[in-house]
């Protein structure tokens, strides 16, 4: 007797009409729950006009519970009179449970080592017994016996901690994976789990991290497999003779679209401006702006002596000023970025060692390397800067893989808060250069080993084209109806009942489907608490606000910009005036005097 015929494993009986897609069965009390994998034995015709038994595998997608002996009227009386049901003659023991099963496929009854699933071509027999398979059978079904295939362990079956769930590693790194969940659903936990599994394989990983969710890898790098290197990068743009195009790339991604004449003028000033290797892009752009200003001045003077081919006369003042404006715009963004870099490095210098971002075109090996996790920490940068960095890095790395330069190995890119980088058309895509880059990578990436892992809490705001290119999905708790509908529309094999349970998932519980698994599975993601960042993430803002010393901060900053200014009459009169101002509770007069004098002086000058 095998497990499928063992009556002790029986949990119910098939009832009603059955089909090749689903069936219903009456479930014995407390013997199974939603998400459980069940099996039935049923006869299936074969090619030789006879039939043989096959195991029909299915997943319970819903359970209806009904107590026909408990009329609603009785409930009303119990509530009115504040009675306990158990104290009356009402019955509680005759519930019946009607479970609906989504059929996954059929396998041979006598398959021993590996269980191949085939589509079911003949309906399940009504009145067939429904069996709760042992863990060993489910493991075999999930492909656990295929030990040679690399896997990424994500957790266990929901409600069956004895059955591990793994993703097919090759499908994840070549066919892309989307992790979708609302805030608190556990998407970062899930992503961290999969990244750790990839690290276990020594696979190169590039993470774009807008919130510092993955800094825990750096903090706990000692716990990673030996030889694993975790690099933290802050964005920095530099120019050299080899990558002179970086400025035009920046202009294309950050600036406004240029006309042909503006392009010509831009190329002209780039040709005229000398580059020394390692110059910051912002410094170089500043030089370009100065050159453009000179040209503008020349045009203004209408210098008729200069009649050379590339004389400024060829370019109108409008063209020159437009290029100048674009350059100034990019310059401002870069300056802001550099200012952020400074603040960031200063703030986190004690805990983290940040490196300047290598040039992805010239030095891709510094970013993508075997057993290396490269984290681009993007917190604090504006949206356009973040998107530009993702676009430029990914563009360059993809180009290296696509051109088969053999300089970098295949790698996995992780994009957190993906709705900011690949927004849908409705969200506005003007200032999101990363959208086109990711589209290119996701459509062509499978050929070149540039897999993507897209993580988002607002699936409905993601670009549909990109999401449909993901062949695997891990969807955790989702409540927003728009998000649920969108997920259903892009996930071919997500049933309606599956979509309905998305909102019932607890943290870390979800459904994994697509090519990375043999069929959709409800999963409890393993939580790697060891790799959570202890510094960033769960700041106690209430505590911070409670302990905020406002007067101290004000006092510390007072005079930060005005200290070099001429002493005020008040200060002259009393050298201790400054000291007085630094007292915790300064008087009204002390607070208002110095600035008012200064501003009135300016006002007089203007008049």
């Amino acid at each position, binding site marked *: 007797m095998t497990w499928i015929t063992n009556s002790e494993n029986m949990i119910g009986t098939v009832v009603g009409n059955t089909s090749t897609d689903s069936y219903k069965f009456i479930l014995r009390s407390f013997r199974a729950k939603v998400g459980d994998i069940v099996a039935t034995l049923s006869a299936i015709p074969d090619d030789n006009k006879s039939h043989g038994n096959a195991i029909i595998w299915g997943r319970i997608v819903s359970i209806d519970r009904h107590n026909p*002996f408990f*009329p609603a009227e009785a409930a009303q*009386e119990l509530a009115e009179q504040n*009675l306990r049901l158990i104290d009356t*003659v*009402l*019955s509680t023991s005759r519930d019946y449970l009607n479970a609906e099963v989504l059929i996954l496929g059929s396998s041979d009854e006598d398959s021993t080592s590996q269980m191949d699933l085939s589509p079911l071509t003949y309906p399940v027999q009504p009145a067939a017994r429904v069996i709760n398979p042992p863990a060993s059978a489910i493991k075999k079904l999930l492909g656990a016996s295929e030990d040679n295939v690399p896997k990424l362990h994500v957790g266990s079956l929901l409600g069956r901690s004895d059955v591990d769930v793994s993703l097919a590693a090759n499908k994840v790194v070549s066919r892309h994976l989307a992790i979708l969940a609302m805030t608190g659903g556990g998407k970062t936990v899930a992503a961290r789990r999969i990244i750790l599994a990839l690290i276990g394989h020594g696979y190169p990983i590039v993470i774009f991290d807008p919130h510092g969710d993955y800094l825990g890898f750096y903090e706990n790098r000692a716990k990673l497999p030996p030889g694993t290197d975790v690099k933290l990068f802050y964005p920095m743009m530099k120019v050299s003779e080899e990558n002179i195009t970086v400025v035009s790339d920046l202009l294309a991604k950050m600036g406004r679209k240029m006309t042909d004449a503006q392009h010509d003028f831009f190329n002209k000033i780039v040709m005229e401006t000398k580059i020394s290797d390692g110059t910051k892009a912002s410094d170089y752009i500043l030089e370009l702006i100065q050159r453009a200003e000179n040209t503008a001045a020349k045009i203004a003077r209408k210098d008729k002596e200069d009649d050379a081919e590339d004389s400024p006369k060829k370019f109108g003042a409008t063209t020159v000023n437009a290029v100048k404006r674009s350059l100034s715009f990019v310059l401002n963004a870069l300056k802001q970025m550099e200012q952020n870099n400074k603040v960031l490095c200063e703030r986190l210098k004690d805990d983290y060692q940040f490196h300047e971002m290598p040039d992805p075109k010239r030095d891709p090996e510094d970013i993508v390397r075997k057993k290396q996790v490269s984290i681009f920490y993007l917190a604090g940068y504006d949206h356009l800067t973040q998107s530009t960095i993702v676009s430029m890095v990914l563009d360059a790395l993809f180009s290296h893989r696509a051109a088969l330069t053999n300089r970098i190995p295949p790698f996995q890119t992780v994009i957190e808060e993906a709705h900011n980088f690949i927004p849908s058309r409705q969200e506005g895509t003007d200032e999101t250069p990363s959208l086109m880059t990711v589209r290119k990578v996701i459509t062509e990436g499978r050929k070149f080993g540039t897999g993507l892992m897209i993580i988002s809490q607002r699936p409905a705001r993601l670009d549909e084209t990109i999401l449909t290119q993901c062949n695997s999905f891990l969807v955790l708790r989702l409540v927003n109806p728009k998000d649920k509908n969108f997920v259903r529309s892009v996930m071919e094999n997500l049933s309606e009942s599956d979509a309905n349970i998305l909102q019932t998932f607890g943290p870390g519980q979800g459904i994994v489907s697509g090519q990375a698994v043999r069929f959709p599975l409800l999963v409890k993601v393993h939580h790697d608490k060891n790799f959570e960042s202890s510094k960033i993430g769960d700041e106690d803002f209430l505590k911070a606000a409670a302990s905020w010393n406002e007067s101290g901060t004000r006092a510390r900053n007072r005079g930060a910009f005005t200290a070099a200014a001429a002493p005020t009459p008040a200060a002259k009169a009393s050298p201790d005036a400054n000291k007085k101002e630094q007292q915790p509770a300064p008087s009204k007069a002390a607070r208002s005097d110095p600035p008012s004098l200064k501003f009135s002086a300016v006002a007089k000058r203007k008049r």
Partner: protein
Amino acid sequence: MEIQDRIESKITQGDFLANMLRVARSEGPRLQHAFVEHVGNLAEKLSVFLRANGRVQKAAYNPAEFWPRQKGRAFGFVDGGVAAIDLPGASPLGIRVGSYVVRPGDESGEREEFKIEFSIVDDLYAEEPLTFDVPEDIEDRYDDRAKLRDAARIISEIAAALALSRRRQDLGVLLVHGPLINPAAPYGPPGFPHFTAEAAESLFGAAVARDERHFIPLYRQILEQLKEASAPVFGVVERDGGGRPLLERLILTMYQAGDLPEAEKRAGLALLRKYDLSDAQILDVVLEAGEYLTPTTVPRQEPSNKWPKDWDENLKVYPNPLTTFLKPSETVRPFRVETFEGARNHEEAMTLILATARLLPGYGFPVALDIVDKFAKVPSWLSKEIGAGHKAVLLRKAFESDDRKLQEYAIKMLSVSSRDWFFRPKA
């Protein structure tokens, strides 16, 4: 609520309306306007009369105190289900009687017990049916199969109650869905078959002598055994059969006891007859929520002039039910409650019946009897499947015979009749 108000609220309900129309047609327009007034008058008089003579009692309804007090006691409920199968060429009989025993307040897994106490699956057309004996000459087979089915249903329900009372000695009260004692005379005409020895033994729980295997003596024996059971047994009737047996009996009883003058008796009975309202209809406006009439013995086997000669001695000594009507709440009609004469703890049982009926505040019937009714009911899908299976066998046999006429006959018999609308000529 005053009687007049109660009548006003009931006046649009089906039975009242039907009666009003009937009376109005026979009595002329004068009564059309006076109906409410007259019925009100009758009910008012009856109410005053009953209350003045202490014939109305009240069961207390205080669930918050009552139910916790029942903790640990066991109550039993019995009901039967009959399969509704209509088959050509067969007379199938499918009866099962279920029991539900519950122990309020018990939080263990032993709180409830559901059991099919008794079941009959038989074909009355079979050469050797399992339930009733067939006479030696097959032509003498008793024809009224509806009566045979009724007899089997009535006796099996009460037999199941007996089996439960024997099995569960811990029962505090046992309620049966339906009349406790049915008229037995209709099942005693000449030729009405005896039960088989096996059927009688399984009904009674012990071997039964040949002469005692007939419905009338066997039913009486079971009732008498049940009367002696440790738990008081009550029959609760969901749908009243009509008539005024209780009120008429009450007036007669009081007259016989010398408490009612002859003229008042005649006037009272005439009034009841005049408006042709049933016990339940009149008491619906007379009784208030939780009230019931003082139980009165109603001779269930009357009239004796219709008794079959063979069984009159037996019918003479049949137990009679002590009958009352209980009005569970203001909005629902009272239902009939029967028990054996000399039943113990009657008032306590009425309180239980009221409390269980109040758990269905809209329907006003003991909820546990509703539970056991649903449990024992033979589902329609099962009956249909039996019918479909039987037809398939019949058809297959017809086609195996190669007789074209037989096949056509079978098809006609199993499909639609030639008088079906389906065969009406088209325009």
